[in-house]
């Protein structure tokens, strides 16, 4: 089975973030700073990371998220693990 495309991965991340943090999906864009857009701190970011790991059935070490704050870069990090 081939890996999903980066666009598909990005779309799933945005959908999951919108659903969990109760933000309208249409308000999220790939280049948003997710800390600001979702209004989350680092503990909530770890919560999001855990949900994404479960959703994509991957392990993404948190040091790969150092300095990452936009959905597009996050999607690239996840894509590299699929």
């Amino acid at each position, binding site marked *: 089975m081939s890996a999903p495309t980066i666009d598909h991965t990005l779309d799933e991340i945005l959908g999951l973030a919108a659903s969990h943090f109760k933000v309208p999906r249409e308000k999220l864009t790939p280049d948003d700073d997710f*800390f600001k857009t979702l209004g989350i701190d*680092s*503990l909530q970011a*770890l919560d999001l990371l855990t949900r994404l790991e479960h959703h994509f059935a991957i*392990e993404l*070490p948190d040091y790969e998220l150092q300095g990452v704050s936009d959905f597009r870069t996050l999607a690239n990090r996840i894509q590299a693990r699929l």
Partner: protein
Amino acid sequence: MNDFKGQTLSWQIVNGAIELALHRDPCNEIGSLTLDELEKFAAALSRLTDEAHALIIHSTLKAGFSAGADLRELFQRAQVMEKGAALRGVREFLERIHAVMNALDAAPLTTIAAVHGVTFGGGFELALVCDIIIADRMARFCFPELRLGLIPGFGGIPRLKRDLGNAVVRDLLLTGRSFNVMKAQQIGLVSQIAAEGEALRVARATASQVGKFDRRTAAAAKEFVKPIPYEELKREIDIFCDLYSRPAVEEGLRRFVENEGVQPYLP
């Protein structure tokens, strides 16, 4: 004292199991007040053990089981003390918390950590003293101490080495990365995974099951399979204190304490 309601933790006996609940905001950081109350619990444990067959440790806070040592207290105390006195204070704190952890580790009843959310550093070490770790699906574990220029100081490395393969221990310790329950179960750390918000219920069901067996047999089985690495635990305190006296640690603690950004818990 079968019931206790403290500022950082409380306990009661429910259906033959002692339930030790952690509830110090924001995430059960373990400082001097928590240590005082943990010592009260350790002192009461022999009496409680007469009336219970199991111990469940859990957190009532949404953020998680425990974020570990109270780094703000550690840093702030060091700022107002002469260096030698600060180091002696750290050693005394470690010796006291090790005594509590060792008492929990050796308790002649079945001990269960029901963890969720953040289970970091000293919180992870508290879970590691338990016989069984039951984790909520959203639990996350981490030994972040190397980020501060330290090693885990509450007995984490010897107990992790006791329970897991050394290669895994090196990965977790040397990268300081956090990991989820699937990884934790895969490496043999977590026994059971519970749905979100269900870890305590699963722990209670497990406590009920272990209560069906003869207590003396259960205690003998535990003592046989779970040796306590006393020599390594003492060595850990020495290494921690050697590292603590370096300026790099003060800087690491300062960075954490003074960080007002959104990412202090990310590496």
